[in-house]
């Protein structure tokens, strides 16, 4: 918080100084960008600033103002027919498209923010040029400045393209979807044809409400998401680690062979293996068929079509998916346990059991805690296992647009793709964000690699 306050006071301090102590060119560059630089003979730089301002004004005049003017009501006209001006015939009048209006407004807001940053940098550059000039320092010409972008300012050059693409394909969409969470953009307000509008926190209230259609789905799914994440994370962790320990123990032969057997299953694309498993475990599928013909059961087990069985099946199949991963990672760590730890323990007369409980296990727990947390967050967001295996089923009319094994994220997917209830999908997205953020911020900020990046160099 303090940091933010500091940087704000720095920004306003600079603006104040530039206004108070700047010459007329510096002051003018508050309004006409680049003038301060042009006055100091940094023509190209000044012109670039000027071009940006012209571009911004052009954009605002052509699109920006129009886009922002609908930001408050998101369009009101629905498509209808009316008599033309001459009064001779009916014409179709297209309605407002709230979706595109909101998107245009979101773009306009981001453009304005971008321009404010440019504007601030323009003043900073102009004021800096003035100070350098007054101090009699040599100003950089354009070529030198360009060369500087491959040296002292390399970070700017290297980050420009990635950041631009993240802005367009990550930040803008997320910003837009957060806005959607406060509208009633659901299946009965689909443009074109219908308009949607701001509804404030109504969607959040609907999610929280135990008795509403949406709330009755949200709470059970949230509960199952946590149950799933806990079981999936810890069972994979414990059994995967046991597997690694068994393979790496002294008496085990053909270690590399066993490891490869399990690693092969990771290598197969999940959508292939899970789709196939789903088919294998279906009610009339080969698993039930085989069990029936062997006489082990006399009616099919509903692996994926009854609530409890489906949940258990998914957690078990997830072991098949996840254990090899844990095995791979923990094997690497097991082999890295400092051997002097073992030696000193052996000198002190510890037996294999004691060594395992007093050295191997505590060391593993210590080292793998961050992995445990990322796995937990990963499982809350685990789309593949649920979607390909059971597709959230068995479906139930109790829940809105989802089934007994749906997680928050698969429900989000279904709300987006199947029922087009974008506003609820956005609210779920925000909830998932809050959950992952709380879990990981608490722990991630406490890990050494975040605090001490250069610990190894």
């Amino acid at each position: 918080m303090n940091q933010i306050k500091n940087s704000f006071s720095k920004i306003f301090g600079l603006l104040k100084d530039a206004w108070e102590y700047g010459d007329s060119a510096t002051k003018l560059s508050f309004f006409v960008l680049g003038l301060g630089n042009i006055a100091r003979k940094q023509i190209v730089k000044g012109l670039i600033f000027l071009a940006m301002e012209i571009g911004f004004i052009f954009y605002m005049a052509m699109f920006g103002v129009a886009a922002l003017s609908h930001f408050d009501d998101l369009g009101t006209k629905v498509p209808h027919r009316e008599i033309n001006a001459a009064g001779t015939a009916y014409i179709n009048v297209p309605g407002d498209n709230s979706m595109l209006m909101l998107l245009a407004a979101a773009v306009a807001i981001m453009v304005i923010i971008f321009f404010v940053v440019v504007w601030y940098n323009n003043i900073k550059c102009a004021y800096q040029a003035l100070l350098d000039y007054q101090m009699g320092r040599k100003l950089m010409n354009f070529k030198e400045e360009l060369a500087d972008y491959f040296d002292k300012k390399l970070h700017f050059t290297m980050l420009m393209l990635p950041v631009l693409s993240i802005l367009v394909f990550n930040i803008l969409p997320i910003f837009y979807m957060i806005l959607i969470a406060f509208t009633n953009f659901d299946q009965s307000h689909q443009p074109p044809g219908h308009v949607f509008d701001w509804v404030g926190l109504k969607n959040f209230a609907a999610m929280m409400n135990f008795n509403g259609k949406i709330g009755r789905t949200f709470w059970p799914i949230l509960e199952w998401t946590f149950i799933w994440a806990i079981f999936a994370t810890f069972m994979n962790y414990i059994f995967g680690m046991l597997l690694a320990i068994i393979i790496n123990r002294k008496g085990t032969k053909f270690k590399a062979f066993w490891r490869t057997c399990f690693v092969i299953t990771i290598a197969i694309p999940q959508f292939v293996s899970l789709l196939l498993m789903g088919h294998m475990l279906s009610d009339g599928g080969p698993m039930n068929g085989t069990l029936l013909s062997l006489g082990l059961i006399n009616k099919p087990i509903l692996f994926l079509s009854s609530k409890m069985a489906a949940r258990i099946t998914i957690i078990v199949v997830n072991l098949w998916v996840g254990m090899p991963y844990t095995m791979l990672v923990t094997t690497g760590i097991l082999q890295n346990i400092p051997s002097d730890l073992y030696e000193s323990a052996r000198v002190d007369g510890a037996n294999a059991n004691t060594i395992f409980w007093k050295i191997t296990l505590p060391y593993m727990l210590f080292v793998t805690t961050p992995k445990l947390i990322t796995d937990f967050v990963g499982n809350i967001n685990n789309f593949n296992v649920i979607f390909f295996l059971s597709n959230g089923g068995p479906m139930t009319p109790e829940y809105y647009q989802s089934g007994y094994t749906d997680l928050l994220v698969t429900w989000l997917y279904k709300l987006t793709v199947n029922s087009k209830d974008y506003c609820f999908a956005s609210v779920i997205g925000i909830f998932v964000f809050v959950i992952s953020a709380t879990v990981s911020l608490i722990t991630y900020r406490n890990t050494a690699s975040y605090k001490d990046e250069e610990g190894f160099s």
Partner: protein
Amino acid sequence: MKKETSSMKQNRFIANTIVHIILSIMAIVWLFPVFWIISESFNAGATSGSDSFLPTGFTLDNYIKLFTDTSQFFFVKWFFNTLFVAVGTCLLSTFYVLCVSYTLSRLRFKARKTLMNIGLVLNMFPGFMSMIAVYYILKGIGISESLTSLIFVYSAGQALNYHIAKGFFDTIPRAIDEAAWIDGATRFQVFYKITVPLSKPILIYTVLTSFMAPWLDFIFAKVILGTNYKKYTVAIGLWTMMQKEYVDTWYGRFTAAAVIISIPISLLFLFMQKYYVEGMSAGAVKG
């Protein structure tokens, strides 16, 4: 040292036997689906309604039809679509990841921590929450329902996955950079003359992971490519084959396609396994 008694030897023999039996059973369970899909792809009687694991006869029909029957789905086209996206994503996102991770790891500038925190926050939103917005943005740019747009979307996503590469760069001693600066090298020269040649393992890792992503991703491809079968990638193609409307006719070819796709991806994965473990455990050990 105690002398090993015969009963201890016997105990150890029993323990080893039990361990090997357990491992064998587990290996069979884990590998069973793999063998089953291979046998199904050659099985003359493979149908979606089959209730037995055992094949009924040998055939190459599934493979032949997969490559020659183009009446509805065209697998070869899907394959080359995906290859195109994979190569494009691989080039663009390796460039992005390299830029981002190098900058955040080796260069020091004011906004560095802020940018890292923003990246952290962005990564916590479920990736596909914004897929509809992405679709309309692509439509606005005029490249929706195209393979090129997939390249951009995947690469932007990969640019935020810089942690493993950054962790690698963090381990290269900064003294090397500083020495080069003193000798008059610019920071960019340090990057491409010193750091890049030193980063072969992480380069290989980044190239391979970003090459594999388009073969495995389902969600974005499905939303962006819509119902245009000709533009599908293999992941959505194979998923479509298993949907209720198609599974009866396409089941056999699905298994054949699954085998064909899995072989190169498995080989790639086995090859980069070492780098994967190094990346993961490096992060963990530092934690």
